């Protein structure tokens, strides 16, 4: 008789806790089907699926993932219908357009990743947290200093409203490393060609920063042509410029960004919030080098650091 009483108590307690830690309905909204977004999404799913709730009795119910790609035909409408009609615990926005789309659903917790400049896109939502697509100035300075140890003068074309703050921080950091940032401030892309001319003979390397005011297809081509003509290596932020003539690219680790978003999602789902102890995920930057360009430019690369660095 005593054993029957113990069994009934355990059953009641288990049912109550199981309801509190039920499976989460997660909607992943992706801007387009490109490889970096796919890597981040896959890493997010795998990471979140492996992470148990941070509190309560552990259950075996997996999270439910529903995915939409806005660039697909009817993808935007399908995602909107789904979010309007179903109780969703969390939205993961991959890409800027996805973040702008998910911003409207302010009642649903929102996580974003792979967004370079998220603030302008968050108009309605006040609880969104995410992993911005950016590489901090320290990393730029570090990579420049380690990979190109002979570089003393780093040229950079920037706009004050775009990457002005970045340049100021980088300038200070570079100074600490014995390098100097030679900045060329522009207000529009039409000025870039002329400002590049001003940098001729004054720099050892050129940073190509993700600045919408500065960088256009024409200015990017002008920078790469400048690199070729002046035999100055270009350090950029995206692999697509690496293929066109840049020598080094500082590329965020997309999978790591997906995993970081999963940590944030786990915190949100467990009501820990973005300010919780587990909200920080160490970002990682991959260094891509166009060795052919380096060979043609005759630039010295510290291969030992490249092989061992991260």
């Amino acid at each position, binding site marked *: 008789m005593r054993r029957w009483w113990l069994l009934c108590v355990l059953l009641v307690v288990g049912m109550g806790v199981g309801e509190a830690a039920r499976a989460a309905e997660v909607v992943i909204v992706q*801007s*387009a089907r*490109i490889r*970096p977004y796919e890597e981040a999404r896959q890493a997010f799913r795998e990471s979140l699926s492996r992470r148990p709730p941070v509190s309560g009795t552990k259950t075996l119910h997996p999270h439910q993932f529903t995915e939409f790609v806005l*660039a697909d035909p009817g993808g935007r409408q399908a995602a909107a219908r789904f979010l309007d009609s179903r109780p969703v615990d969390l939205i993961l926005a991959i*890409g*800027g*357009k996805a973040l702008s789309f998910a911003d409207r659903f302010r009642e649903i917790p929102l996580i974003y990743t*792979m*967004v*370079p*400049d998220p603030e302008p896109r968050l108009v309605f939502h006040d609880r969104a947290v995410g992993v911005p*697509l950016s590489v901090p100035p320290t990393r730029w300075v570090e990579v420049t200093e380690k990979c190109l140890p002979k570089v003393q003068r780093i040229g950079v074309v920037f706009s004050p409203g775009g990457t002005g703050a970045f340049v100021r921080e980088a300038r200070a950091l570079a100074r600490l490393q014995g390098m100097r940032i030679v900045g060329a401030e522009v207000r529009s*892309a*039409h000025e870039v*060609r002329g400002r590049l001319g001003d940098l001729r003979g004054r720099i050892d390397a050129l940073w190509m920063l*993700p600045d*919408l005011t500065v*960088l*256009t*297809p*024409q200015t990017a*081509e*002008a920078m790469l*042509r400048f690199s070729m003509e002046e035999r100055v290596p270009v350090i950029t*932020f*995206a692999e*697509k410029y690496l293929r066109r003539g840049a020598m080094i690219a500082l590329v965020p680790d997309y999978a790591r960004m997906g995993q970081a978003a999963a940590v944030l999602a786990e915190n949100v789902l467990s009501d820990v919030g973005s300010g919780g102890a587990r909200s920080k995920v160490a970002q990682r930057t991959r260094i891509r080098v166009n060795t052919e360009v380096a060979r043609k430019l005759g630039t010295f690369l510290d291969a030992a650091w490249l092989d061992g660095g991260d």
Partner: protein
Amino acid sequence: MPAELRGLTFRTRVLAYLLAFILLLTLALGTVLVRSQQASLRMQFEDEGRTLAHLLANSVRLDVFASDHEALLRSVAPVLQNRNVEQVVVLDATGEVLMNTGGSHDVSERVPVAEMAAAGDAPGARDPRGLPRVVWQEDGERIVFWREVLDRLAYETPEELYFEGLGGSGGGASVLGYVAVVLSKERLRRETASVVRRMAAVGGGFFLLGGVLAFLVSREAARPLARLVEAFRDQGITVESQDELGALRDTFTSLVTRLERAFATIQELKEGLEQKVAERTRELARANEELRRARDLLEERVRERTAQLEAMHRHLRQTEKLSAVGKLAASLAHEINNPVFGVRNVLQELQRKLDLDPEDAELVALSIEECNRIAKLVRSLREFNRPSSEVPAWVDVHSSIGAMLTLCRKRFSRQRIRVETSYSPEVGRVFAIEDQLKQVILNLLTNAAEALPEEGGTIRVSTSASNGVVRIRVEDTGCGIPEENLERIFEPFFTTKSAASGTGLGLSVCYGIVERHGGRIQVESRVGEGTAFTVELPIGEEGNERKGSAGG
């Protein structure tokens, strides 16, 4: 066939046809190839212009964007190295000329902005390689290839700074300006003219080679025909036309005509032959009929001759038999006659010398009489085969028959036998031995009387003569002779009578006498109706060979 070619030789005509064919073929092929080459050159020309416009539009994007005239000159310089490029013009989006390499025409006044814009907006405006369309303007001397200078002036989102494939290729591109590549058509014309010249040369060579081949082919083709025509001439067929085909036609017509005539002749011969065959058939039928009749006649003659031979054979056999019997009888008679005469003489001496009582005297008389009968029989036997010593002479047949009938009259009357005679006036005398003739008649009359029954009957005696033969026929109405006995009645000692009434020698003696006279004796008899004997004697004449044979 064209009238001009008629009368030409086959070889010349074949050569003309082949040359015409080769010429037409050369012209057709040359035209097709020239057109093809022209189209190919034109296509290459247009491709070249489009390619240059594309390359130039892409290479001057930054220069147009920056309105960098010096950079434009550097970018355009390689294009001007192309020999077909006459002029290059670069304009900005407002139509202001950024660069003009100079030329005889100011193409900047004719920018096809609307056409390029329409091409850019229309579905499928981009070519399959994803490039914007090139619009071209053409006049008599040049072609101007226009192409927009397109590029994105700015990225729409920060993500586009990082990644490709977010906004689509060319999406959001702006018109930075225009490039015009002017190609001169002079080189195209020169190359086209060169192609025509080359094709003309090749065609001429082809025609010459074809002409040589046509010459050889016509020669080889005409050779058998010429040989055939020559063979016709050798065979005596008149060939008037100088053209081989005409000669063949004439020969063929001549042969057909001959063949028709030959067929007509064959038909006539066939009809005549059929008629002759019918005639011959009829003649053969007639001859066959004659042959059949001749065969029948021959068969009849053969039967007659066979019957005669058989009769002669029987007669010969009978003669041989009678001769043998006669010889035997004569020999026996000689041996019997002497003792019988001795016995009769003894008996007559006894009758004469002794006085015998009546009974003994009657017995002696009877013995003498029997001896006489034996003597008579022996004499008959001797006479059967012995040649008569009497000389034949002309004997009146009817008188001899009358004397014998007179001799037999008493017996005939006693036997109530009626005698009928029928003498032919043509029968006169025969050359024979009278006594033997009379004996024959007497034997036949006696034999007939003996064949008649006791109550009597009729004996008919008739004569006839023809062909030098006298026939004496003695018929009776007696019992007749069976068929099986007819063959033997002339054999000696063959008789159906009792031993007392006949000796069986009468008919044998008759047969021998008639045989010696060169005649013959025949018998016809039917049982129950009577018998008829016919004696045929040749009339004969004095001194005839029969005289010798009849006399022995």
